[in-house]
């Protein structure tokens, strides 16, 4: 019977998942409050549905609910969730376990964290099929090798013998897709599978995932915050916000004519673009710098960068390109093994300990994660007040007055002074970090991925704020990022780095326009575009080129 009904619904176009008026509660602050507030979702066989929204939109929670799973601290309160005729809200744990892995599979955001560090890839890949008695071990291994090959993993025959820490992030993400595919499920939930990857890696992973889902006609729910990415994968897109559905339509329709203001705001940063302006007055110059970490591994190789005063130089590159190390060298945290750093024409002492207080004051930093960069036990007043006291010797009323000015400058009013970081939103925390850097009245601020952890709209606000502050105080920014949209929004000049070397430095208009050096070309072409045919076109172009 069961097999019969399964066969009958194998037909493409039949509904596979139906969620009706689903409400999911989360537990925090000692009460339950809704995270997903009554959403309907229908997924047909073989269809790929994109769930898009910012952090807190409830997209992951909803995606997991489609397999009848609620994370610890969450509960599915009401509504119905049926998967191929089975009501998952009423199914027992054992019934759900029988479905999980074999008919519904999950691909997690960070493959590096979702693979068990203690077991080899092969053992983890075949585990589902063997445990569910879909295949015996030998056959499952042969099949896994086949899948590794289809996902274009290098050495598909032997890569399974490796441990998770021995392969790269992009390879792990593909291995996880192979793991999800091992039982040929009817549905795969992709939960931000490429968010943690570099853009050049993301292209390969996206292509591999799309390809395999098509090959096996698997239905998928693709969760992401990046509309350009989901446009490559999904037939249909649902935009979520605060646990509610904002808009739902076919992918092309959505990109061509989004109905809701909120949907348009999802590519807010992409719409930003600053006019570049050159300046010959150099504030900071990094000259032929080499740097290495303790184990002797060379991370910077003959790096030279010129940062003009009152301008923004964006340093772009992928993880491991040496862009954050460059910041560490400039600040003196990691003395270079060769070369020198000139600040206002004078050589900086290489070691942080050898720099005097006034030099320290002139160079400030803002970090990616305001959560960890702000002391959680200090009030905003103390966080901003500390550099005022330390560098400028302000105390008492003068200090209070300056704190208020700074708060106004970052568009928070004085009432925020007595809050703790935990009482602020992510964007507000980053504003406080900016105020802390500004308090020292620096000439140069190094911004290390300061918008990477923020939602698009908040990113846009922060970038606007940074640009306004530059106009007001003529401060110089060295802006480290991996995101080309951000670069377009804020930079005057761009430095492209790869594997510890500077590939290119120049005005934005020059770097972002042809002719490109090979790496810049690869990097720029890998940035997903708001065009559903972008990935297909790019792959065709790259294939033709080789």
């Amino acid at each position, binding site marked *: 019977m069961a097999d019969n009904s399964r066969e009958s619904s194998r037909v493409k176009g039949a509904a596979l998942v139906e969620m009706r008026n689903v409400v999911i509660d989360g537990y925090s602050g000692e009460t339950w409050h809704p995270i997903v507030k009554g959403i309907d979702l229908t997924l047909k066989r073989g269809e790929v549905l994109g769930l898009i929204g910012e952090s807190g939109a409830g997209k992951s929670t909803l995606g997991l609910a489609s397999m009848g799973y609620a994370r610890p601290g969450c509960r599915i309160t009401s509504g119905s969730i049926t998967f191929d005729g089975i009501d998952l809200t009423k199914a027992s744990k054992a019934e759900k376990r029988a479905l999980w892995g074999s008919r519904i599979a999950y691909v997690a955001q960070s493959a590096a964290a979702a693979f068990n560090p203690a077991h080899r890839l092969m053992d983890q890949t075949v585990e589902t099929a063997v*445990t569910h008695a879909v295949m015996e071990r030998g056959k499952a291994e042969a099949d896994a090798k086949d899948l590794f090959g289809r996902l274009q993993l290098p050495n598909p025959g032997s890569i399974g013998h490796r441990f998770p820490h021995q392969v790269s992030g992009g390879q792990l993400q593909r291995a996880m897709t192979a793991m999800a595919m091992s039982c040929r499920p009817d549905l795969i939930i992709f939960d931000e599978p490429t968010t943690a990857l570099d853009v050049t890696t993301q292209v390969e992973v996206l292509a591999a995932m799309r390809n395999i889902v098509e090959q096996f006609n698997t239905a998928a729910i693709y969760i992401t915050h990046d509309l350009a990415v989901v446009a490559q994968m999904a037939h249909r897109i649902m935009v979520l916000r605060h646990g509610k559905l904002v808009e739902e339509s076919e992918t092309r329709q959505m990109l061509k004519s989004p109905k809701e203001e909120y949907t348009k705001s999802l590519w807010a940063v992409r719409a930003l673009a600053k006019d570049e302006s050159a300046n010959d007055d150099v504030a900071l110059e990094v000259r032929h710098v080499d740097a290495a970490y303790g184990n002797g591994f060379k991370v910077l190789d003959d790096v030279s960068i010129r940062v003009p005063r009152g301008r923004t130089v964006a340093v772009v590159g992928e993880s491991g390109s040496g862009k954050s190390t460059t910041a560490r060298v400039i600040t003196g945290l990691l003395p270079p093994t060769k070369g020198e750093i000139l600040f206002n024409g004078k050589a900086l002492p290489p070691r942080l300990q050898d720099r005097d207080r006034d030099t320290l004051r002139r160079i400030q930093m803002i970090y990616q994660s305001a959560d960890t960069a702000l002391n959680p036990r200090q009030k905003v007043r103390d966080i901003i007040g500390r550099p005022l006291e330390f560098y400028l010797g302000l105390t008492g009323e003068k200090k209070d007055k300056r704190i208020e000015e700074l708060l106004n400058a970052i568009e928070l009013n004085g009432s925020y002074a007595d809050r703790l970081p935990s009482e602020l939103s992510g964007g507000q925390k980053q504003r406080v970090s900016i105020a802390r850097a500004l308090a020292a009245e620096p000439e140069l601020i190094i911004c290390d991925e300061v918008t990477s952890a923020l939602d698009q709209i908040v990113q846009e606000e922060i970038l606007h704020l940074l640009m306004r502050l530059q106009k007001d105080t003529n401060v110089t920014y060295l802006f480290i990022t991996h995101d080309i949209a951000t670069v377009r929004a804020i930079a005057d000049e761009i430095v492209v780095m790869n594997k510890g070397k500077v590939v290119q430095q120049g005005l934005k208009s020059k770097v972002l326009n042809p002719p490109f050096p090979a790496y810049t070309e690869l990097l720029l072409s890998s940035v997903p575009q708001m065009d559903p045919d972008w990935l297909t076109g790019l792959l065709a172009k790259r294939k033709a080129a080789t």
Partner: protein
Amino acid sequence: MHPVLRTVLQRLGLGVLTLLVVAVVIFSTLSFLPGGYAQNILGQGATPETVANFNHELGLDRPAPVRFAEWLGNIVLHADFGNSYAGLKGDIKRPVSSLIGPRFYNTFFLAAMAAVIAVPLALILGLLAALYRNSWFDRAVNAITLTTIASPEFFVAYVLMYFLAIKNRWFYSLSTVDVNTPFWEHVSKAALPALTMTLVIVAHMMRMTRASVISLLSSPYIEMAQLKGLSPGQVILRHALPNAWAPIATVIAFNLAYLVVGVVVVEVVFAYPGIGQLMVDSVSSRDMPVVQACALIFAATYILLNLIADIVAIVTNPRLLHPK
């Protein structure tokens, strides 16, 4: 050289160094003890001359560094721990090793018996408690093991003796064994002390197993394992436990060392001729060669077991065992 082998050799070298430091500490602290063997044996009425003569006979009038070098040299070169003061009568000598040998065997026998029961029991209880966390089972196991660890050892020992040896004559209440006791008789005689030791150490290991497994349960790879449709038991055994060995091994090593060095109370209660009793007797009679030898063996036990725990931590961590 494989990095694991290098680490092990490094630790081994450090262990030897630690042992050397311990030897110095033992030797010097013991020389601060008030009174000496001579005073102790000759009594309060002894004249200073007789004490001096006696000390001369034992060689105790020589400077401490010389005696230390001689003592350590004999151990390292000849595995000779010297002679017990107590046995010195004319030409008859009682080497420390002949005193300690059988005692150490008994202690090791008892420790091994307790370990064979306690370690698997603690692991199984810990895993079950993690699997059924916050259930009545979890709470009961926690409460019972905490009670047994919180009660004094002699109390646990007497309670067991009362119920298992006196009320029901299942076990021997006295564990008198000697070199000629056959193996199985030794086992049955040492059963009650072993059971006592088990009750004393199981809580620590069980709670560490439970805690280190539970601390991993919020990891993304555990959620992944659940979403692959594995049962809770499979999730814990296959996915949590392999990553939890390092802290568990450390606690097991610590408790095994305790089984060797901390058993004197239990030995006294059951009149079991172990090394703890010997050491206490030797301290009160100031029989320094025996005390020093015992202390050195205890230190070596700790160092060796901790080394094994370190090796377990390395071997169960693929990042260290299989570097990139």
